[in-house]
């Protein structure tokens, strides 16, 4: 099985994250969120570490990881593209935008490009509904996106 987090990183994770939350009440979610933030995923090696340190079974931890859509087992791409598919954006043609991005990046909704540059993430609603259709790239919100400007918006991220 491929490993995404090496031994040194695991040691750091134990020192800096697990020890910080260890004595708090029900710290699991917060620890998983830190892993997702640091490594872009919560791989099995991190789940094992948490299991040993907090005495929670890996089955339970994996159950939580697989339940929430924000946690992933493999790292996401360098840039995360979230074409909002909430109701307001749906009626503003979000589905057509998704097709455009899929074609432009040669990937599928929910997947990562082969070069690891982009993840076209499942995105339900980012809460900017009056300015739909909305596309979130990393932490930046692009509003009133149409089929005309979606490719221009993507362009700068291709090189970075």
């Amino acid at each position, binding site marked *: 099985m491929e490993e995404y987090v090496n031994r040194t990183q695991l040691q750091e994770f134990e020192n800096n994250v697990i020890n910080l939350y260890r004595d708090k009440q029900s710290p699991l*979610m*917060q620890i*998983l*969120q830190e892993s997702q933030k640091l490594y872009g995923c919560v791989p099995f090696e991190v789940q094992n570490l948490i299991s040993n340190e907090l005495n929670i079974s890996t089955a339970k931890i994996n159950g*939580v990881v697989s339940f929430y859509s924000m946690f992933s087992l493999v790292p996401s791409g360098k840039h995360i593209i979230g074409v909002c598919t909430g*109701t*307001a954006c749906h009626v503003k043609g979000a589905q057509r935008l998704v097709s455009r991005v899929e074609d432009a990046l040669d990937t599928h909704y929910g997947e990562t490009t082969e070069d690891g540059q982009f993840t076209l993430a499942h995105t339900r609603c980012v809460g900017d*509904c009056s300015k739909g259709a909305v596309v979130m790239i990393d932490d930046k919100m692009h509003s009133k996106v149409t089929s005309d400007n979606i490719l221009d918006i993507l362009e700068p991220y291709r090189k970075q």
Partner: protein
Amino acid sequence: MNRKALEKIKNDTIKLDPDLFEKKVKTHEKEIRVVLQNCDIIDPENINHYIVNNGYFGIHNAVTSMSQEDVIKEVIDSGLRGRGGGGFPTGKKWNFAYKNENETKYIICNADEGDPGAFMDRSILEKDPHSVLEGMMIAGYAIGAQTGFIYVRAEYPLAAQRLQIAIDAAREINILGENIFDSGFNFDIEIRLGAGAFVCGEETALIASIEGYRGMARNKPPYPASNGLYGKPTIINNVETLANIAQIILKGSKWFRSFGTEASPGTKVFALAGKIKNAGLIEVPMGITLGEIINDIGHGVSNKRKFKAVLTGGPSGGCLTEAHLNEKVDFDNLVALGSMMGSGGMIVLDDHDCMVDIAKFFLDFSVDESCGKCTPCREGTIQLYKILEKITNGTGTKEDLDKLYTLSKAIKRTSLCGLGLTAPNPVLSTLEYFYDEYLAHVVDKKCPSSTCKELINEYIITDDCIGCTICAKRCPVDCISGERKELHIIDQEACIKCGECFASCNFDAIITL
């Protein structure tokens, strides 16, 4: 911290910035801003700005001159009902927890705004976070809790950040912490982030999530008010509900009742979006008519199209049509019309939107977000989705429509939590008001709104084309040709039927066969 110090901050801040509240936010004459009173006016990262508008005077008055019973009575008298969608009377809820003798109790602010299409909670959290903190403190004082949690959905990083800044600022001047206003009341607040699960907006699922489990609902009773977070009495209130509290305490229940209707007092924030000209957040008194919201405040449907329906209540709600424009918008009336208030999202649709497609869209959402614990919701929503898929791809039959109805009713009767109990609502509501459209799909194999791709054989440009070239520019496979100001033609061999041209035409010149 005491009243004098609070007054001093207020006066000093106003001296520094005398025009602070002169800044007017443009609102329609039918709007009344209670919850949004500070939004876009104050600097949300400056606690002093909040104090200028009598911020934290509510909690001060509560802990220094009111008993817990007084606070609860005021909220009960105000008739405030939960703004998250259920509409349960807030004061009554608090009373359950107050009466419980357990020493440890919790307040949770439900900021897991999951309805795709609603964004009022996000706006309140980002633009006036202290109003939510103060509401939580008053709730905490009323029921006897010392700890509050705010469960923010992970998609709202800025909201979480602003809340943390607000909490730190309130702690610094000892508004949050121990012995608040020398009253002996202790209260502190922690933020917990969600991780992308719609069902966590349901009380018991939310509690499970904070406790570090899969966000799955459980049977009620026992209700969280008696057996909630870590088994302790817990009150869960929505963001907008809490943002009302301080003003009810400050100005009284009578003032609050001066807005809205007898059974649904106060104002409600709605998020207008979709095919509407004037999209955005509005705050109106309950009982306003749907037409006033859509036509007067929202300025009607955009792009010369025709109003078709408005979706309220998100994946749990339904649709309202032209026939309902004179209906009053309040908790009970919307339910009577087969929809629901929900958190206040209003998505406007025009005649290019297919109601079957919308129902399918919502079911896709519910299938995705069902936690999987109870069978009716887990399996039932998938079956509903499959039938809707059949209908939209042209293989549906009239029997399928009956099946949709029967299955929807069964899911509504037997599901465990709010998600499953309401997931069939979009189907039932569209079946009721747009049965003809369903019939067109299954009998004529046509989609009257030209939305369902499998029912479209070709896109054709009619003589109405003025040669604006927009469709040709937008076509991803360059299969539209024609000179500027002349009739354009679609090369049917090359056309991939993506629908881009149809959506781009402003002159209704493209039709589908």
